[in-house]
């Protein structure tokens, strides 16, 4: 845990943070609104105080209530992974700015997040499905997507008890497994 990093981040980005900075093990976590992503990540990447030059991961997350985009950054100025969570994307129409202007390689990771969650990254010039076939319609990693897509629409309903326990067949629509984000 890098306490100084926390202090630095609070001082620099205090007004854009949408939640408290959390630290656990070797990770520091900040939350921002999607609209602030380009500015915050740009600052983290460019400013010599931070030098987060490496994007270790870009992941979409469906918490069951909102969508999130999670960035993991690495810098030689700190021993921590920095986790930036762009929080509060709506599940109906998730949209967030693309960061391909910072890391070109984010293009495919954003494509993957789009493919799996339907998150639209504005500014990604090649946002199409990457793993699933072009004519595919649903987003498999969303929490209201049960395993075996076709089976989910069939009378058999959900598939294994482990999945069904989260969303029984006759339960009201929209009850999905969720986590307190």
């Amino acid at each position, binding site marked *: 845990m890098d306490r100084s990093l926390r202090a630095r981040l609070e001082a620099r980005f205090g007004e854009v943070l949408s939640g408290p900075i959390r630290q656990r093990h070797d990770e520091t976590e900040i939350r921002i609104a999607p609209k602030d992503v380009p500015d915050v990540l740009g600052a983290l990447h460019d400013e010599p105080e931070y030098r987060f030059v*490496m994007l270790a991961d870009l992941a979409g*997350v469906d918490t069951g209530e909102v969508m999130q985009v999670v960035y993991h950054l*690495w810098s030689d100025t700190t021993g921590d992974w920095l986790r930036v969570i762009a929080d509060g994307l709506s599940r109906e129409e998730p949209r967030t700015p693309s960061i391909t202007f910072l890391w*070109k390689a984010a293009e495919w990771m954003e494509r*993957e997040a789009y493919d799996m969650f339907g998150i639209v990254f504005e500014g990604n010039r090649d946002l199409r*499905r990457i793993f699933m076939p*072009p004519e595919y319609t649903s987003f498999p*990693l969303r929490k209201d997507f049960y*395993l075996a897509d076709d089976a989910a629409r069939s009378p058999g309903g959900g598939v294994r008890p482990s999945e069904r326990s989260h969303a029984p067949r006759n339960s009201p629509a929209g009850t999905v497994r969720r986590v307190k984000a």
Partner: protein
Amino acid sequence: MLDDEVGLFEPIQPNPPRTEREAEFYTLGDGEMLLNVGPHHPSTHGVMRVVMKLDGEKVVDLDPVLGYLHRGVEKLGENADFHQSIAYLDPLEYVSSLFCEWPAVMAYEKLLDVEVPRRAEYIRVLSGELNRIASHTLAMGFQALDLGGITPILYSFIERDEIVEMLAALTGQRMLFNYFRIGGVNGDLNHDFMSRLGDWMSRAATQIEANMGLLNENEIFVRRNRGLGVMDSETALRMCWTGPNLRASGVSFDLRRAHPYSIYPELDFDVPTRNEGDCLARYLLRLDEVKQSLRIIDQCLEQMPDGPVMAKLPRLLRPRPGRAFAAVEGPRGLYGIYAMSDGTDQPFRFRIHDPSFIHLQSFTTLIPGHLIADWMAINASLDPIMGGVDK
């Protein structure tokens, strides 16, 4: 006769373009044609499809099409409990399976606040470095195979087979080891493994050196790789490269040093770096790394402590809700797992970060302007494993 049919080499667009980039790619200029390489082409290292826009033999642009091996491992992992989800990771990068398991167990250990016994850490590093050597020798052999040299790959496979037999004695399986457990490893070192390892270590360095001597000095091989697919360090970072490919571009970034984990801070090894950033540098860097891995194995064997190899854990794991990210330095770069727990016995989100996926997308940066044959050389030097790319 042919005039009645479709124009001889007219491109067939499977779908209307979805993005500007796709539309631009599938619009052919004067004298250009599309060549569909894959999904089963001899040198795609798996089931990859690349649509190439060619001007004669020159590649103008290309569009990799993924998903032929997509198994939905992330979804499967979210529907399995914490132990089970590790088993799904092995088939991702099937030539270096241990490095797929490793970040997952590390992430889960973070979620559970488990302390791993030191002997288990040593065994992880030992087996991991063996797996790295196996993967690197294979990568070097394939680089020759894709250039048409058929012999080095077989020498590589002989070396790899010895390592794989060794790991089979340790883990029980030859390829999909499923050896790392949350809080340790599945079983201690055994006599069979140790005798095989000692036997192999005594001749490994000279043997690998001799095998690769077939290529290192070979003028044809050197000329075909030097100055090919050059990636400068700035672009490499923007392309999120990691691992040997990044180090061949002059960035000394090795997670074992840059973000130390396990017992690597206690071990003495160098991070080889090269500045050329071309295919030859990537090849030679792998050879250097093999030597460093041999050093690490030597030290592990020397310093191996006694003790348990598994932490005491309850049978049913229910970590507190939280998030954890763990990454290790694999033979291809940064393998990361981002795990979220919602308090049940299954991971809530199970994100896999695979380096091959990242390296593959720099095709569009590296290859345009080169010839078709160079595509194979560059592809082999990036060493992607499609099982990991497609998840």
